[in-house]
């Protein structure tokens, strides 16, 4: 377990991440007003930023950067099934044959 000296170092990280998160939010909203020409790019950029932010929260606030193996296993399995869920749903939606006829 970390002693209080370590912790005060952590506190600095927390503040840094807090600021990074706020900046991320501002950028996302800013980009919305700027408007990219293509909606796809807008969506991609917004999701990338959100993902980065979530990595910061999960990695540092939730200490995932330095967790135990058991937790990694649990979350790894979960993320895998989550991706299976989304991926196979979307795939199956695109793979519906069209009606036939003239």
């Amino acid at each position, binding site marked *: 377990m970390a002693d209080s000296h370590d912790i005060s170092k952590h506190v600095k990280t927390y503040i840094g991440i807090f600021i990074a998160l706020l900046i991320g939010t501002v950028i996302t909203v800013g980009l919305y007003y700027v408007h990219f020409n293509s909606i796809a790019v807008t969506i991609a950029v917004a999701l990338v930023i959100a993902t980065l932010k979530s990595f910061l929260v999960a990695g540092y606030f939730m200490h995932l950067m330095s967790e135990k193996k058991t937790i990694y296993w649990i979350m790894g399995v979960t993320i895998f099934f989550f991706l299976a869920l989304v991926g196979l749903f979307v795939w199956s939606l695109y793979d*519906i*044959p*069209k*009606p*036939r*006829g*003239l």
Partner: protein
Amino acid sequence: MTNYITKYLGMPPVTAAHAQGLDNLLWYIHVLMAVLFVGWLAYFLYVIVRFSKARNPKADYQGLKGHASNYVEGLVVVVEFVLLVFFAIPLWASAVDKFPDAKDSLVLDVVGSQFSWRARYPGADKIFGKQDARLVSAENLSGVDAKDPNAKDDFEVVNDIVVPLNKDVIVNVSSMDVIHCFAIKPMRVTQDAIPGLKLATHFKPTVAGTYLINCAQLCGNSHFAMRGTLTVMNQADYDKWAASKATGAGAGAGSYE
């Protein structure tokens, strides 16, 4: 092939062109199942007699030696693989991808609703009239646009569908309300009817006569009685029937107004 498969599996006779392939696969799988089942059962019965406490008071820590089990497992894997790759996948592909040419086929729109099947025929011009959801009313359930000239010779039948013999039939299956399932068991045809989607299936009847269309998906309290008939008749009779429908009273474009 006079059909020992249908006989031993107790299935209805084969009455559509693609049905034999499906039956064959069903047969091979059941042979595999039977071999496994009988083999294991024989082993099982032997073992419980041979190794009962009375016969074998002292158990053996090592148990079975050798690789017999690996061979059995390997065999199952191989057979399943063969059935999958050489039979199931191609069969499905031909059911879903290899559609007959629509020009030479009869194309039908079949719409399920609680609790009947409504089939729309494109008529002599082989083109369906336009449909529009906003036109839907109790009198015009299909929402056909009567102004469209293509709609003039379209006609509809409820529950009693007629198709010509030995000609490909393409059915676009859909539903107005809940999910139904359009099934003609002797033709080995089953397709869910899902509101909001139009799903195509096809078959080629090879035996004239009457068949039952059944709804295979629970759709409400009269699900069990949602029965239609499919009548397969030779081309000449079919043409006569279609002509009478297209111009007959209560059918044709007139009924949409």
